[in-house]
Protein backbone atom coordinates (compact mmCIF):
# COMPACT_ATOMS: atom_id res chain seq x y z
CA UNK A 1 0.00 0.00 0.00
CA UNK A 2 1.41 3.40 -0.91
CA UNK A 3 0.33 6.95 -0.34
CA UNK A 4 -0.96 8.64 -3.45
CA UNK A 5 1.06 11.73 -2.55
CA UNK A 6 4.41 9.91 -2.39
CA UNK A 7 6.55 9.35 -5.46
CA UNK A 8 6.62 5.67 -6.47
CA UNK A 9 9.44 3.69 -4.92
CA UNK A 10 10.13 6.08 -2.05
CA UNK A 11 8.79 6.54 1.45
CA UNK A 12 8.30 10.09 2.49
CA UNK A 13 9.42 10.82 5.99
CA UNK A 14 9.55 13.38 8.75
CA UNK A 15 12.41 14.30 11.04
CA UNK A 16 11.55 14.90 14.68
CA UNK A 17 13.82 16.55 17.20
CA UNK A 18 12.59 15.40 20.60
CA UNK A 19 13.52 13.28 23.57
CA UNK A 20 10.04 13.40 25.09
CA UNK A 21 8.41 9.98 24.93
CA UNK A 22 4.77 11.07 24.63
CA UNK A 23 5.67 13.55 21.90
CA UNK A 24 7.62 10.95 19.96
CA UNK A 25 4.73 8.48 20.19
CA UNK A 26 2.03 10.95 19.19
CA UNK A 27 4.00 12.39 16.32
CA UNK A 28 4.85 8.91 15.02
CA UNK A 29 1.17 7.90 15.14
CA UNK A 30 -0.22 11.07 13.55
CA UNK A 31 2.35 11.43 10.81
CA UNK A 32 2.39 7.70 10.19
CA UNK A 33 -1.34 7.83 9.62
CA UNK A 34 -0.80 10.76 7.29
CA UNK A 35 1.70 8.72 5.29
CA UNK A 36 5.00 9.92 6.74
CA UNK A 37 7.51 7.70 8.48
CA UNK A 38 8.95 9.51 11.50
CA UNK A 39 12.57 9.29 12.62
CA UNK A 40 13.68 11.07 15.78
CA UNK A 41 16.86 12.66 17.09
CA UNK A 42 17.17 13.94 20.67
CA UNK A 43 18.86 17.24 19.78
CA UNK A 44 19.27 19.37 16.65
CA UNK A 45 22.99 18.74 16.85
CA UNK A 46 22.33 15.08 16.02
CA UNK A 47 20.71 15.87 12.70
CA UNK A 48 20.65 14.85 9.92
CA UNK A 49 19.05 11.47 10.54
CA UNK A 50 20.74 8.69 8.55
CA UNK A 51 18.67 7.06 5.79
CA UNK A 52 16.08 9.83 5.83
CA UNK A 53 16.24 11.68 2.56
CA UNK A 54 12.78 12.67 1.34
CA UNK A 55 11.79 14.82 4.33
CA UNK A 56 8.31 16.30 4.03
CA UNK A 57 8.23 17.83 7.52
CA UNK A 58 10.69 18.80 10.22
CA UNK A 59 9.36 18.89 13.77
CA UNK A 60 11.34 20.64 16.49
CA UNK A 61 10.38 20.09 20.14
CA UNK A 62 11.52 23.29 21.84
CA UNK A 63 11.51 21.51 25.21
CA UNK A 64 14.77 19.74 24.32
CA UNK A 65 16.47 22.93 25.51
CA UNK A 66 13.91 25.10 27.36
CA UNK A 67 16.31 27.95 28.05
CA UNK A 68 17.75 28.12 24.55
CA UNK A 69 16.10 30.69 22.27
CA UNK A 70 13.65 29.06 19.88
CA UNK A 71 15.39 30.66 16.91
CA UNK A 72 18.66 29.02 17.84
CA UNK A 73 17.13 25.52 17.91
CA UNK A 74 15.27 26.13 14.68
CA UNK A 75 18.30 27.50 12.85
CA UNK A 76 20.36 24.50 13.87
CA UNK A 77 17.68 22.09 12.64
CA UNK A 78 17.04 24.08 9.48
CA UNK A 79 20.70 23.88 8.50
CA UNK A 80 20.27 20.15 7.92
CA UNK A 81 16.91 20.29 6.11
CA UNK A 82 16.83 23.53 4.14
CA UNK A 83 13.41 23.15 2.52
CA UNK A 84 11.20 20.99 4.76
CA UNK A 85 8.26 22.78 6.41
CA UNK A 86 9.04 23.27 10.10
CA UNK A 87 6.65 22.50 12.94
CA UNK A 88 7.62 23.83 16.37
CA UNK A 89 6.20 22.04 19.40
CA UNK A 90 6.44 23.12 23.04
CA UNK A 91 5.03 22.37 26.45
CA UNK A 92 7.21 24.41 28.76
CA UNK A 93 6.11 28.06 28.70
CA UNK A 94 4.29 26.97 25.57
CA UNK A 95 2.41 30.10 24.56
CA UNK A 96 5.40 32.45 24.69
CA UNK A 97 7.81 29.91 23.19
CA UNK A 98 5.53 29.06 20.29
CA UNK A 99 4.78 32.67 19.45
CA UNK A 100 8.54 33.30 19.56
CA UNK A 101 9.01 30.37 17.18
CA UNK A 102 6.24 31.54 14.84
CA UNK A 103 8.00 34.89 14.52
CA UNK A 104 10.91 33.02 12.94
CA UNK A 105 10.65 33.38 9.17
CA UNK A 106 11.17 29.65 8.63
CA UNK A 107 8.38 28.48 10.95
CA UNK A 108 4.79 28.33 9.71
CA UNK A 109 3.39 25.76 12.12
CA UNK A 110 3.39 25.80 15.93
CA UNK A 111 1.63 23.35 18.22
CA UNK A 112 1.37 23.20 22.02
CA UNK A 113 1.64 19.92 23.84
CA UNK A 114 -1.49 18.94 25.67
CA UNK A 115 -1.25 19.67 29.35
CA UNK A 116 1.07 22.58 28.68
CA UNK A 117 -1.09 25.21 30.34
CA UNK A 118 -2.43 23.39 33.35
CA UNK A 119 0.09 24.86 35.74
CA UNK A 120 -0.01 28.05 37.75
CA UNK A 121 1.19 31.16 35.96
CA UNK A 122 4.95 31.10 35.71
CA UNK A 123 5.13 27.47 36.79
CA UNK A 124 7.51 25.19 34.98
CA UNK A 125 5.98 21.77 34.34
CA UNK A 126 7.81 18.52 34.72
CA UNK A 127 8.17 16.93 31.33
CA UNK A 128 6.41 13.87 32.70
CA UNK A 129 3.20 15.87 33.22
CA UNK A 130 3.01 16.80 29.54
CA UNK A 131 1.47 14.88 26.71
CA UNK A 132 2.50 15.34 23.11
CA UNK A 133 0.71 17.54 20.58
CA UNK A 134 -2.90 16.63 19.79
CA UNK A 135 -2.88 13.72 17.33
CA UNK A 136 -5.91 14.80 15.36
CA UNK A 137 -4.74 18.39 15.03
CA UNK A 138 -1.30 17.25 13.90
CA UNK A 139 -2.76 14.75 11.46
CA UNK A 140 -5.01 17.39 9.90
CA UNK A 141 -2.16 19.89 9.66
CA UNK A 142 0.19 17.46 7.95
CA UNK A 143 -2.47 16.13 5.58
CA UNK A 144 -3.30 19.64 4.52
CA UNK A 145 0.36 20.30 3.94
CA UNK A 146 0.67 17.21 1.76
CA UNK A 147 -2.54 17.55 -0.21
CA UNK A 148 -2.36 21.25 -1.01
CA UNK A 149 -5.12 23.83 -1.10
CA UNK A 150 -7.81 21.81 -2.85
CA UNK A 151 -9.64 20.95 0.38
CA UNK A 152 -10.49 24.34 1.80
CA UNK A 153 -12.89 25.16 4.57
CA UNK A 154 -13.61 23.26 7.72
CA UNK A 155 -13.79 19.68 6.41
CA UNK A 156 -10.13 18.78 7.20
CA UNK A 157 -10.76 19.48 10.88
CA UNK A 158 -14.02 17.56 11.32
CA UNK A 159 -14.83 13.88 11.28
CA UNK A 160 -15.68 12.67 7.81
CA UNK A 161 -19.34 13.14 7.01
CA UNK A 162 -19.95 16.08 9.32
CA UNK A 163 -22.32 18.51 7.55
CA UNK A 164 -20.69 21.74 6.44
CA UNK A 165 -22.78 24.89 6.15
CA UNK A 166 -21.94 27.82 3.90
CA UNK A 167 -23.18 31.40 3.92
CA UNK A 168 -22.23 34.13 1.47
CA UNK A 169 -21.46 37.53 2.94
CA UNK A 170 -21.44 40.63 0.72
CA UNK A 171 -22.02 43.42 3.22
CA UNK A 172 -22.36 44.32 6.90
CA UNK A 173 -26.00 43.27 7.05
CA UNK A 174 -25.08 39.82 5.72
CA UNK A 175 -22.43 39.65 8.43
CA UNK A 176 -25.02 40.17 11.16
CA UNK A 177 -27.27 37.51 9.61
CA UNK A 178 -24.36 35.06 9.30
CA UNK A 179 -23.44 35.65 12.93
CA UNK A 180 -27.00 34.98 14.02
CA UNK A 181 -27.00 31.79 11.94
CA UNK A 182 -23.89 30.34 13.56
CA UNK A 183 -25.07 31.31 17.05
CA UNK A 184 -28.36 29.51 16.36
CA UNK A 185 -26.39 26.54 15.03
CA UNK A 186 -24.30 26.39 18.20
CA UNK A 187 -27.33 26.85 20.44
CA UNK A 188 -29.09 24.01 18.62
CA UNK A 189 -26.31 21.75 19.95
CA UNK A 190 -26.92 23.12 23.44
CA UNK A 191 -23.66 25.04 23.48
CA UNK A 192 -23.88 27.90 25.95
CA UNK A 193 -21.77 30.02 28.26
CA UNK A 194 -18.12 30.25 27.39
CA UNK A 195 -18.30 27.72 24.55
CA UNK A 196 -20.93 29.76 22.77
CA UNK A 197 -19.03 32.96 23.44
CA UNK A 198 -15.87 31.49 21.88
CA UNK A 199 -17.72 30.48 18.73
CA UNK A 200 -19.48 33.83 18.35
CA UNK A 201 -16.34 35.83 19.04
CA UNK A 202 -14.16 33.95 16.56
CA UNK A 203 -16.78 34.18 13.83
CA UNK A 204 -17.41 37.88 14.32
CA UNK A 205 -13.74 38.81 14.36
CA UNK A 206 -12.99 36.78 11.22
CA UNK A 207 -15.95 38.30 9.36
CA UNK A 208 -15.08 41.85 10.43
CA UNK A 209 -11.53 41.28 9.23
CA UNK A 210 -12.76 39.99 5.87
CA UNK A 211 -15.15 42.93 5.39
CA UNK A 212 -13.00 45.81 6.59
CA UNK A 213 -9.30 44.86 6.67
CA UNK A 214 -8.92 42.43 3.78
CA UNK A 215 -10.52 44.16 0.76
CA UNK A 216 -8.07 45.53 -1.80
CA UNK A 217 -8.58 47.40 -5.04
CA UNK A 218 -6.92 46.51 -8.36
CA UNK A 219 -3.75 48.27 -7.23
CA UNK A 220 -3.55 46.22 -4.07
CA UNK A 221 -4.54 49.17 -1.87
CA UNK A 222 -6.73 48.70 1.17
CA UNK A 223 -10.29 49.78 0.46
CA UNK A 224 -12.16 49.64 3.77
CA UNK A 225 -9.37 49.63 6.35
CA UNK A 226 -9.90 53.23 7.44
CA UNK A 227 -13.68 53.17 7.46
CA UNK A 228 -15.37 53.63 10.83
CA UNK A 229 -16.51 50.13 11.82
CA UNK A 230 -19.90 51.50 12.81
CA UNK A 231 -20.57 52.25 9.15
CA UNK A 232 -21.89 49.53 6.88
CA UNK A 233 -19.77 48.41 3.94
CA UNK A 234 -20.52 46.41 0.82
CA UNK A 235 -18.03 44.35 -1.18
CA UNK A 236 -19.60 44.89 -4.59
CA UNK A 237 -19.10 41.81 -6.73
CA UNK A 238 -16.70 40.17 -4.25
CA UNK A 239 -18.01 37.50 -1.92
CA UNK A 240 -16.81 36.40 1.49
CA UNK A 241 -17.73 32.81 2.33
CA UNK A 242 -18.42 31.65 5.86
CA UNK A 243 -18.22 27.89 6.26
CA UNK A 244 -18.85 26.09 9.52
CA UNK A 245 -19.59 22.68 10.88
CA UNK A 246 -19.37 20.52 13.96
CA UNK A 247 -18.86 16.79 14.49
CA UNK A 248 -19.98 16.83 18.10
CA UNK A 249 -16.49 17.29 19.48
CA UNK A 250 -14.96 19.96 17.31
CA UNK A 251 -16.56 23.06 15.85
CA UNK A 252 -14.74 24.77 13.02
CA UNK A 253 -15.41 28.13 11.39
CA UNK A 254 -13.71 29.30 8.20
CA UNK A 255 -13.96 32.71 6.56
CA UNK A 256 -12.60 33.01 3.02
CA UNK A 257 -12.17 36.24 1.10
CA UNK A 258 -11.04 36.75 -2.52
CA UNK A 259 -8.30 39.28 -1.74
CA UNK A 260 -5.27 37.33 -0.49
CA UNK A 261 -3.93 40.32 1.40
CA UNK A 262 -2.99 38.75 4.73
CA UNK A 263 0.74 38.44 5.45
CA UNK A 264 2.24 36.17 8.06
CA UNK A 265 4.19 39.09 9.49
CA UNK A 266 0.97 40.94 10.26
CA UNK A 267 -0.22 37.90 12.17
CA UNK A 268 2.96 37.38 14.17
CA UNK A 269 3.31 41.06 15.06
CA UNK A 270 -0.12 40.98 16.61
CA UNK A 271 0.31 37.65 18.34
CA UNK A 272 3.60 38.82 19.78
CA UNK A 273 1.58 41.31 21.79
CA UNK A 274 0.05 38.34 23.60
CA UNK A 275 3.48 37.19 24.69
CA UNK A 276 4.63 40.69 25.54
CA UNK A 277 1.41 41.66 27.35
CA UNK A 278 -1.18 43.99 25.91
CA UNK A 279 -0.91 47.46 27.41
CA UNK A 280 -4.28 48.61 26.06
CA UNK A 281 -6.20 48.51 22.78
CA UNK A 282 -4.24 50.33 20.12
CA UNK A 283 -5.70 53.66 19.02
CA UNK A 284 -7.17 54.31 15.61
CA UNK A 285 -10.12 53.07 13.63
CA UNK A 286 -9.04 49.55 12.79
CA UNK A 287 -9.61 46.76 15.28
CA UNK A 288 -8.09 43.79 13.50
CA UNK A 289 -5.06 43.59 15.73
CA UNK A 290 -7.00 43.02 18.91
CA UNK A 291 -9.55 40.94 17.03
CA UNK A 292 -6.88 38.52 15.90
CA UNK A 293 -5.47 38.28 19.40
CA UNK A 294 -8.95 37.62 20.82
CA UNK A 295 -9.58 34.96 18.19
CA UNK A 296 -6.25 33.34 19.06
CA UNK A 297 -7.22 33.17 22.73
CA UNK A 298 -10.54 31.40 22.07
CA UNK A 299 -9.46 29.01 19.28
CA UNK A 300 -7.60 25.72 19.67
CA UNK A 301 -6.27 25.97 16.14
CA UNK A 302 -5.95 29.04 13.97
CA UNK A 303 -5.22 28.18 10.36
CA UNK A 304 -4.27 30.76 7.75
CA UNK A 305 -4.29 29.77 4.11
CA UNK A 306 -3.21 32.49 1.70
CA UNK A 307 -2.81 32.68 -2.05
CA UNK A 308 -1.35 36.18 -2.39
CA UNK A 309 -3.62 38.49 -4.36
CA UNK A 310 -6.16 35.75 -4.86
CA UNK A 311 -7.62 34.43 -1.60
CA UNK A 312 -7.27 34.29 2.15
CA UNK A 313 -9.00 31.75 4.32
CA UNK A 314 -8.78 31.81 8.09
CA UNK A 315 -10.11 28.84 10.01
CA UNK A 316 -10.73 28.77 13.75
CA UNK A 317 -11.06 25.31 15.24
CA UNK A 318 -12.59 25.00 18.69
CA UNK A 319 -12.99 21.90 20.81
CA UNK A 320 -16.43 21.93 22.33
CA UNK A 321 -16.60 18.48 23.92
CA UNK A 322 -15.99 18.34 27.66
CA UNK A 323 -15.51 21.36 29.84
CA UNK A 324 -14.46 24.82 28.81
CA UNK A 325 -11.34 24.35 30.89
CA UNK A 326 -10.41 21.22 28.95
CA UNK A 327 -10.57 23.22 25.73
CA UNK A 328 -8.48 26.05 27.16
CA UNK A 329 -5.88 23.61 28.42
CA UNK A 330 -5.28 22.47 24.86
CA UNK A 331 -3.79 25.86 24.05
CA UNK A 332 -3.70 27.22 20.50
CA UNK A 333 -1.90 25.82 17.48
CA UNK A 334 -1.23 28.15 14.56
CA UNK A 335 -0.68 27.03 10.97
CA UNK A 336 0.24 29.27 8.10
CA UNK A 337 -0.08 27.87 4.58
CA UNK A 338 0.98 30.05 1.71
CA UNK A 339 0.43 28.89 -1.84
CA UNK A 340 1.56 30.34 -5.10
CA UNK A 341 -1.27 31.03 -7.55
CA UNK A 342 -0.26 27.80 -9.35
CA UNK A 343 -1.06 25.77 -6.24
CA UNK A 344 2.40 24.81 -4.95
CA UNK A 345 2.89 25.20 -1.25
CA UNK A 346 5.48 27.51 0.26
CA UNK A 347 7.05 25.70 3.26
Amino acid sequence: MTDATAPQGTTRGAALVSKHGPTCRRVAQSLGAAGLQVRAAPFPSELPIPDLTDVAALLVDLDVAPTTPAAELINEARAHYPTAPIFAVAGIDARARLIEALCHAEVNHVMPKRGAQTLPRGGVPLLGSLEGPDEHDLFAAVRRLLTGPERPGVAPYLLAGAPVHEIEVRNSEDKDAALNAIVSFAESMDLGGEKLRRVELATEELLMNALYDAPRNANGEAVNANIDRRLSVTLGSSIVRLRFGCDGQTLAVAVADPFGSLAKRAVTERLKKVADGLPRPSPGVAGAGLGLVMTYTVANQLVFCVVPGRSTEVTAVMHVAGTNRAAQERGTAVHFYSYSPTGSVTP
Partner: protein
Amino acid sequence: MIQHQTATRGDGSIEVSLKGKIDERFEYGDLVEATRSAPKVVVHLGGVRAISSLGVRSFEGMMSGLMGAVAARTVELVHVPPALATQLAMIPNLCQGAVVRTAELPFVCPSCGAEATHEVPWKANAHVDHAPACECGGTMELDGLPEQYLPPP
Protein backbone atom coordinates in the same frame (compact mmCIF):
# COMPACT_ATOMS: atom_id res chain seq x y z
CA MET B 1 -26.93 45.64 20.96
CA ILE B 2 -26.19 47.01 24.41
CA GLN B 3 -28.78 48.60 26.66
CA HIS B 4 -28.05 50.65 29.74
CA GLN B 5 -29.94 51.95 32.74
CA THR B 6 -28.89 54.39 35.43
CA ALA B 7 -30.19 54.81 38.98
CA THR B 8 -29.20 57.32 41.65
CA ARG B 9 -28.57 56.16 45.19
CA GLY B 10 -29.29 58.14 48.33
CA ASP B 11 -25.65 59.14 48.73
CA GLY B 12 -25.61 60.69 45.27
CA SER B 13 -23.67 57.90 43.64
CA ILE B 14 -24.97 56.46 40.40
CA GLU B 15 -25.45 52.85 39.45
CA VAL B 16 -25.10 52.02 35.77
CA SER B 17 -26.35 48.66 34.48
CA LEU B 18 -25.30 47.36 31.06
CA LYS B 19 -27.09 44.54 29.29
CA GLY B 20 -26.44 42.79 25.97
CA LYS B 21 -23.42 42.65 23.71
CA ILE B 22 -20.77 45.36 23.59
CA ASP B 23 -19.64 45.90 20.00
CA GLU B 24 -18.86 48.73 17.61
CA ARG B 25 -22.41 50.06 17.99
CA PHE B 26 -22.09 50.78 21.70
CA GLU B 27 -22.76 54.50 22.15
CA TYR B 28 -21.72 55.50 25.64
CA GLY B 29 -21.83 59.30 25.41
CA ASP B 30 -25.24 59.66 27.09
CA LEU B 31 -24.22 57.26 29.81
CA VAL B 32 -21.08 59.22 30.65
CA GLU B 33 -23.05 62.47 30.58
CA ALA B 34 -25.66 61.06 32.98
CA THR B 35 -23.00 60.37 35.60
CA ARG B 36 -21.20 63.67 35.26
CA SER B 37 -22.13 65.07 38.67
CA ALA B 38 -21.93 61.82 40.64
CA PRO B 39 -19.20 61.47 43.27
CA LYS B 40 -19.11 57.73 42.70
CA VAL B 41 -20.18 55.41 39.88
CA VAL B 42 -20.88 51.68 40.20
CA VAL B 43 -21.10 49.84 36.89
CA HIS B 44 -23.07 46.58 36.95
CA LEU B 45 -21.84 44.38 34.11
CA GLY B 46 -23.63 41.12 34.88
CA GLY B 47 -25.96 41.57 31.92
CA VAL B 48 -23.13 41.78 29.37
CA ARG B 49 -23.08 38.47 27.49
CA ALA B 50 -20.35 39.20 24.91
CA ILE B 51 -17.82 41.77 23.76
CA SER B 52 -16.07 42.08 20.42
CA SER B 53 -12.65 43.64 19.77
CA LEU B 54 -14.33 46.86 18.68
CA GLY B 55 -16.48 46.59 21.78
CA VAL B 56 -13.31 46.50 23.88
CA ARG B 57 -12.35 49.84 22.37
CA SER B 58 -15.81 51.23 23.08
CA PHE B 59 -15.60 49.94 26.64
CA GLU B 60 -12.24 51.63 27.04
CA GLY B 61 -13.82 54.86 25.78
CA MET B 62 -16.64 54.53 28.29
CA MET B 63 -14.19 53.92 31.14
CA SER B 64 -12.10 56.87 30.05
CA GLY B 65 -15.22 59.04 30.05
CA LEU B 66 -16.36 57.81 33.46
CA MET B 67 -12.93 58.24 35.04
CA GLY B 68 -12.29 61.60 33.50
CA ALA B 69 -15.67 63.21 34.11
CA VAL B 70 -14.96 64.07 37.76
CA ALA B 71 -11.45 64.22 39.16
CA ALA B 72 -10.58 61.67 41.84
CA ARG B 73 -13.99 60.04 42.00
CA THR B 74 -14.36 56.31 42.44
CA VAL B 75 -15.60 54.10 39.63
CA GLU B 76 -16.33 50.49 40.53
CA LEU B 77 -17.04 47.53 38.27
CA VAL B 78 -19.14 44.73 39.71
CA HIS B 79 -20.57 41.43 38.44
CA VAL B 80 -17.98 41.38 35.64
CA PRO B 81 -18.98 38.56 33.25
CA PRO B 82 -16.49 36.05 31.79
CA ALA B 83 -16.41 37.86 28.45
CA LEU B 84 -15.10 41.02 30.11
CA ALA B 85 -13.02 39.29 32.78
CA THR B 86 -10.89 37.75 30.04
CA GLN B 87 -10.24 41.17 28.55
CA LEU B 88 -9.43 42.75 31.92
CA ALA B 89 -6.98 39.93 32.59
CA MET B 90 -5.35 40.28 29.17
CA ILE B 91 -5.27 44.10 29.03
CA PRO B 92 -4.36 45.33 32.50
CA ASN B 93 -4.91 49.02 31.68
CA LEU B 94 -8.35 48.52 30.19
CA CYS B 95 -10.27 49.59 33.27
CA GLN B 96 -8.14 52.75 33.54
CA GLY B 97 -7.86 52.87 37.32
CA ALA B 98 -11.39 51.80 38.11
CA VAL B 99 -11.77 49.34 40.96
CA VAL B 100 -12.88 45.89 39.82
CA ARG B 101 -14.83 44.41 42.72
CA THR B 102 -16.39 41.16 41.60
CA ALA B 103 -16.60 38.81 38.64
CA GLU B 104 -19.20 36.20 37.77
CA LEU B 105 -17.18 33.25 36.52
CA PRO B 106 -18.03 29.77 35.20
CA PHE B 107 -17.57 26.87 37.61
CA VAL B 108 -17.96 23.15 37.13
CA CYS B 109 -18.23 20.33 39.66
CA PRO B 110 -15.52 17.69 39.14
CA SER B 111 -17.69 15.11 40.90
CA CYS B 112 -21.06 15.39 39.18
CA GLY B 113 -20.34 17.71 36.23
CA ALA B 114 -22.83 20.39 37.29
CA GLU B 115 -22.12 23.83 35.87
CA ALA B 116 -22.86 27.16 37.53
CA THR B 117 -21.93 30.82 37.38
CA HIS B 118 -20.57 32.07 40.69
CA GLU B 119 -19.53 35.50 41.84
CA VAL B 120 -16.05 35.88 43.32
CA PRO B 121 -13.89 38.86 44.29
CA TRP B 122 -11.78 39.87 41.30
CA LYS B 123 -8.40 39.02 42.73
CA ALA B 124 -5.75 36.38 42.35
CA ASN B 125 -6.67 32.90 43.56
CA ALA B 126 -10.31 33.88 44.17
CA HIS B 127 -11.37 30.82 42.19
CA VAL B 128 -9.91 28.65 44.95
CA ASP B 129 -10.51 30.83 48.00
CA HIS B 130 -14.16 31.44 47.07
CA ALA B 131 -15.00 28.26 45.16
CA PRO B 132 -18.71 27.45 45.52
CA ALA B 133 -20.10 24.26 46.99
CA CYS B 134 -22.01 22.00 44.66
CA GLU B 135 -25.40 20.55 45.53
CA CYS B 136 -23.78 17.09 45.41
CA GLY B 137 -21.51 18.08 48.29
CA GLY B 138 -18.36 18.58 46.24
CA THR B 139 -16.43 21.78 45.73
CA MET B 140 -16.74 23.32 42.29
CA GLU B 141 -13.71 24.33 40.21
CA LEU B 142 -13.22 27.20 37.82
CA ASP B 143 -14.24 26.05 34.34
CA GLY B 144 -11.28 27.68 32.68
CA LEU B 145 -7.72 28.73 33.28
CA PRO B 146 -7.45 31.23 36.16
CA GLU B 147 -4.95 33.40 34.31
CA GLN B 148 -7.56 33.98 31.62
CA TYR B 149 -10.17 35.32 34.06
CA LEU B 150 -8.37 36.75 37.09
CA PRO B 151 -5.48 39.14 37.75
CA PRO B 152 -2.01 37.72 38.45
CA PRO B 153 -0.85 37.10 42.03
